[in-house]
């Protein structure tokens, strides 16, 4: 995998992860507002911290890109390692950027993290399948009859 391809992968994942974090924060703020809790506000550095988190959480995804095919077991192991590394990163960045100020806040971040992780995998799988479908439809129109 070339450097430009790695950069592209990290960039695409940054967009997905940052969007997912923004979405979750949006949901959290909406529920808080509906519940009459007007205490939720975002500091000036929160948008940057979301982008920073997006980039730092995207870099470990490079462990999935190998030149040689990997077995399903090996791939599942990579997912587990990836998930745990990201959880540590998110909790550390949460502490650094004051996303939480208590243990219950750290637990809430943990729950949000798993939702975002699942969302990212589902969206990636959906995009990949969509691309496969598009290519297969185009191939159907040019395929030789045998």
């Amino acid at each position, binding site marked *: 995998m070339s450097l430009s*391809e790695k950069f592209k*992968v990290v960039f695409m994942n940054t967009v997905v992860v940052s969007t997912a974090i923004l979405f979750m924060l949006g949901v959290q703020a909406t529920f808080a507002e509906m519940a009459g809790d007007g205490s939720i506000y975002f500091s000036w550095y929160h948008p940057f911290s979301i982008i920073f988190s997006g980039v730092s959480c995207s870099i470990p995804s490079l462990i*999935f*890109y190998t030149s040689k*095919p990997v077995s399903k077991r090996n*791939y599942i192991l990579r997912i587990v390692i990836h998930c745990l590394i990201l959880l540590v990163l998110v909790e550390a960045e949460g502490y650094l950027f004051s996303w939480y100020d208590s243990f219950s806040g750290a637990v809430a971040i943990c729950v949000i993290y798993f939702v975002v992780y699942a969302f990212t995998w589902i969206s990636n799988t959906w995009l990949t*399948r969509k691309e496969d479908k598009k290519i297969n439809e*185009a191939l159907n129109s040019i395929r030789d009859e045998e």
Partner: protein
Amino acid sequence: MQVKFESVKTKEEEEALIRAVEKTEAVQGAIELLSGGTTSLAVSLNGKTCFVDKRAIYYIESVDKKTFVYTRDNCYETKYRLYELEEMLGGYFARCSKALIVNLRKVKKVASQLGGRMDAILLNEETIVISRAYVKDIKRRLDI
């Protein structure tokens, strides 16, 4: 389709214009024929030189600086390099990895695999790997 022929005096004046609603297989064939595109490829099998119709080629692979041309049932060797063949064959022959050119007309379906790979299953049920880096070019050739 109406076909008109107009006589000209010099070679420089020769040209062909095809006006069609869409670029069908027949139109593409006519374009390749008129532009002097390659329709067959010189190959060798058991030391004997022969020609393979480019429409019969499934894929072309480079192994240890040798180039092999695969059809449904045979494997031939050719003196051409992959980059030369890419230019010669054009059209639906697309590079799918550093060492492979595939005839997209012979691809039954593609399926993304774990680790960012994409497998292409050919009409003879053989599976070849498409590197992620070449997917964009393949999509361009398919007008996606």
